[in-house]
C-alpha cells in the first residue's frame, strides 16, 4: 500500500515538474488567431454581433466566448469559412441574411444634423452642420448604424443594383428533363 502510494506520488511529482517547466518554457503570448478570424469578417463594423466592431468579435471568437454565427453581413459564407478555419460545426446564421445594401440619404429631408456622420464607423458620410449630407457610396459598408440616429428618418437602406461591372455568371442550373 505504502509503495503504491509512494510510486504514484513520485510519478505525480515528476510529471508535474515536467509540465510546470513546459508551461513556462512554451508560454504563448498574444493570439495570432484573432487576425486570421478578423480577415474573414466583413469589416462592416456594424455591431450586429453584439460586439463593438469586427475586431472585438474576432477576439471573442478566438477566446471561445462568441459563437461563429453572429455576423449577418458575413452571411452563411462567412460562417462556413470560420467553421473551416476553426474546425467547428457550421451553424445557421442567428439573424436572417440580407442582400448587400448601402445607405441612401434622402437629400430633400436631410436637415444637416451630423448625427449620422458621428454614427458612421467608416467615415463614409460627407457633410457639415446644417448642410445636406451625402453618402460616399463606394465606402458604405451597409452597416445600418446611421439609420437609427437620423432624427428625420431620411436614411434608407437600398440593395446594391446589379450592373455590368458587378454582374456575375450564375451557377449553371439545368432542368434535367424528367423523362417519363
Amino acid at each position, binding site marked *: 500500500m505504502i509503495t503504491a502510494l509512494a510510486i504514484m506520488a513520485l510519478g505525480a511529482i515528476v510529471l508535474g515538474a515536467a509540465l510546470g517547466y513546459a508551461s513556462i518554457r512554451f508560454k504563448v503570448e498574444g493570439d495570432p488567431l484573432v487576425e486570421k478570424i*478578423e480577415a474573414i*469578417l*466583413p*469589416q*462592416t*463594423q456594424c455591431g450586429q454581433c453584439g460586439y463593438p*466592431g*469586427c475586431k472585438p468579435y474576432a477576439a471573442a471568437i478566438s477566446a471561445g466566448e462568441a459563437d461563429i454565427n453572429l455576423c449577418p453581413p458575413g452571411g452563411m459564407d462567412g460562417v462556413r469559412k470560420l467553421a473551416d478555419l476553426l474546425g467547428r460545426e457550421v451553424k445557421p446564421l442567428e439573424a436572417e441574411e440580407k442582400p448587400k445594401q448601402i445607405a441612401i440619404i*434622402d*437629400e*430633400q*429631408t436631410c*436637415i*444637416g*444634423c451630423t*448625427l449620422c456622420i458621428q454614427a458612421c*464607423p*467608416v*467615415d*463614409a458620410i*460627407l*457633410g457639415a*452642420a*446644417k*448642410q*445636406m449630407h*451625402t453618402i460616399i457610396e*463606394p*465606402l458604405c*459598408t451597409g452597416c445600418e448604424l446611421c439609420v437609427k440616429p437620423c*432624427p*428625420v*428618418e*431620411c436614411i434608407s437602406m437600398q440593395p446594391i443594383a*446589379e*450592373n*455590368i461591372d*458587378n*454582374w*456575375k*455568371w*450564375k*451557377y*449553371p442550373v*439545368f432542368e*434535367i*428533363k424528367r*423523362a417519363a
Partner: protein
Amino acid sequence: MLAQLFRFKGGVKPQTNKTISVQEPIAQAPLPARLFVPLHQSIGGAPNPLVQAGDTVRKGQLIGGADAWVSAAVHAPTSGRVLAVEEHVAAHPSGLPTLSVVIEPDGRDEWIERRPVDHQSLPPERVRELLRDAGVVGLGGAAFPSHAKLTPARSVAMEQLVINGAECEPFMTCDDMLMRERADEIVRGIAIFRELLAAREVLIGIEDNKQEAIAAMHEAVLRLAPDYRVVAVPTRYPAGGAKQLIRVLTGKEVPASRRSTELGVQCFNVATVYTAYRALACGEPVLSRIVTLTGNVERPRNWEVSLGTPMREVVALARPRADTGSFLMGGPMMGFEIPDLDAPVVKATNCIIAASPGLFPPPPPEMPCIRCGACAEVCPHELQPFELYWFSRARNFGKTQEYYIFDCIECGCCSYVCPSHIPLVQYFRFAKSEIWAREREKQAADAAKERFELRNARAEREQAEKAERLARAASARTSEKKAPPERTNAVDSPPAAAAGEPAAAAATDADAIRKAAIAAAMARARAQRELAQPKNTDRLSAEQEREIAAVEARRGAQPATPEATAGAAGSGAPAGPQRGE
C-alpha cells in the same frame, strides 16, 4: 513556309462551316436611323463622355476619352446629332444596360479633319498615345486596348511578333475576308507594331483551311515586306487562341501569370493591325468593323458595320430563316446568346450567328461527371477540367484556384467532348466571377477596416485633446477667476436672430441650440411625412404646391452648397410629395 511548327496539346476539330459566308465580298452595311455607341467597349477603364444631348458631332469625332492607360477612346461613327447620353442595353451576356451615346445620323457622313501621321517620325510613346486615342483595341473578341500591349519588356529582347489570322472559331470568316481583300493594309500595319516592339521576326499564322487568305497575304508580304513569314498552321480549334498560336509558331508557352512580352513575343489579330494602320496612315479612328453574319440565314456574308448599329438591323441584312430561335455573338464555341437584339454592334462583335434547333441542337440533359478524362485530354492549357468542375460545383473556390482555374481560357473544348454534356465552361465562369467578387469584397473590407481604425484613432485623439483642454480651462478658472471662460470665444456670434427660427434663438450653449434645431426639424419632418404619406396620388395639387413651397422655403433657409444645388437640380421640382412612395 518551311517554318518548324510546334504543337499545343489538346484541341478539338468541330465542323468549321466557314465556306458559306465567304462566297461574297465584304459589303458596307447601311447606316441605321439611330446609333447607340457604348462608351465602354474595351477592357480597362470606362471612357468619360465628352458630348451631351443636343451636340452635333462629325464622323470620327471623339465622344469618349480614355480615362486611364488601359482604356481606349470611342468616336462618333458618323456625323449627326447627339440625342442623349444614357443607359442602353449592352452587347453583353447579362443584357444589362451601359452608358451609351445615342446619335442620330444626318446622312452627310462628314468627317472631322483627318491627320495622317508617319509613325516613323514620331517617338514610340506618341504613337501609342495616338493608337489609344484612335480607339484601337484587339478585334479578335477580347477588346484589350492595343497600345497597352505595345511596350516591350525591359529585360527581354522582342524576338517574335505573331500576327493572328488563324480564326479557329467555326462559322467565323471576318478575318479571312479581311486578309483576302485588304492584305496590303494589314502588312503595312504590321510594320507599325513591329517597330514599336522592335521585334526581330514577324510570323503571320493562318489556319490551313484558308488557302485564299494565305495566298493573298503571301503575295502582299512578298511585295511589301519580304522578311515576314506567312505560316499555315494546322486547323484545330483553338489554334487561334493567342497563347496557342504563339505556342504553335514559336514553341513558347505563356502562362496566365506572365505577359507574353516577358518571353519576347507578342500577338495581335489581323483586324487590329488593319485598324492601327488606318488610324495612323489615314487618321481614321476605329468606327466600324467587319462582322460575319452567318448561321441559319438566307444570305450569309461579311459586312462592314458601323459601331453602334443595333444588332436587329444588322441581322436583318442576312435575312434569318423562320426557325431561327436566337442569335449568338461570337463563334459557337466561345460566343454568347444575345439577350436583346437592341444591343449595338461593338468593337468585340466579330460574328453574329443565327441559331436554330437544327443548326445547334439543344444539349442533352446534363449527367454527372464520370471522370473519364476526355476533357483533360482536349484542354489546350492542360488543366484538369473535371477536377475544376467538381470543386466549382461544390463551390469550393479555394480548391479551384489550386487547380489553376484562372489559366482556363474558356475555349469550350472540354464541354464539346464531355460525354455527360456538362456545361463545364459555365461552371468555370461562375467560379471565376465568384472569386473576383470575393476579391472585391475583401478589398472593400480591408478599406473599411482601415477607415474604421483611422476614425477610432481620431476619436481617441480628439477625446484626449478635449480632456486636456477642459483640464486646462478648469485650472485656468480656478487660478484666475477674472478671466473669461474660453468657451465664450467659440460662440461669439451675435446671439440674437429672427424670432421665428428656434435654431437661431438666443442661447449661449451650443448644444442647446443644436438640440432645439433638431427637435424643430423633427417636428417639421413628421408633419411633412404625415401630410405626404396619405396623399401621394389622390390629394389635390393645391396642397402639393403648399408642400413644395414649404420644402423650397426650408431649403432656401439652408445655406446652399454645391451638393445641395446639384441635388435640387437633379431631382426636379415636384420631388417633395412624391417621395412618400
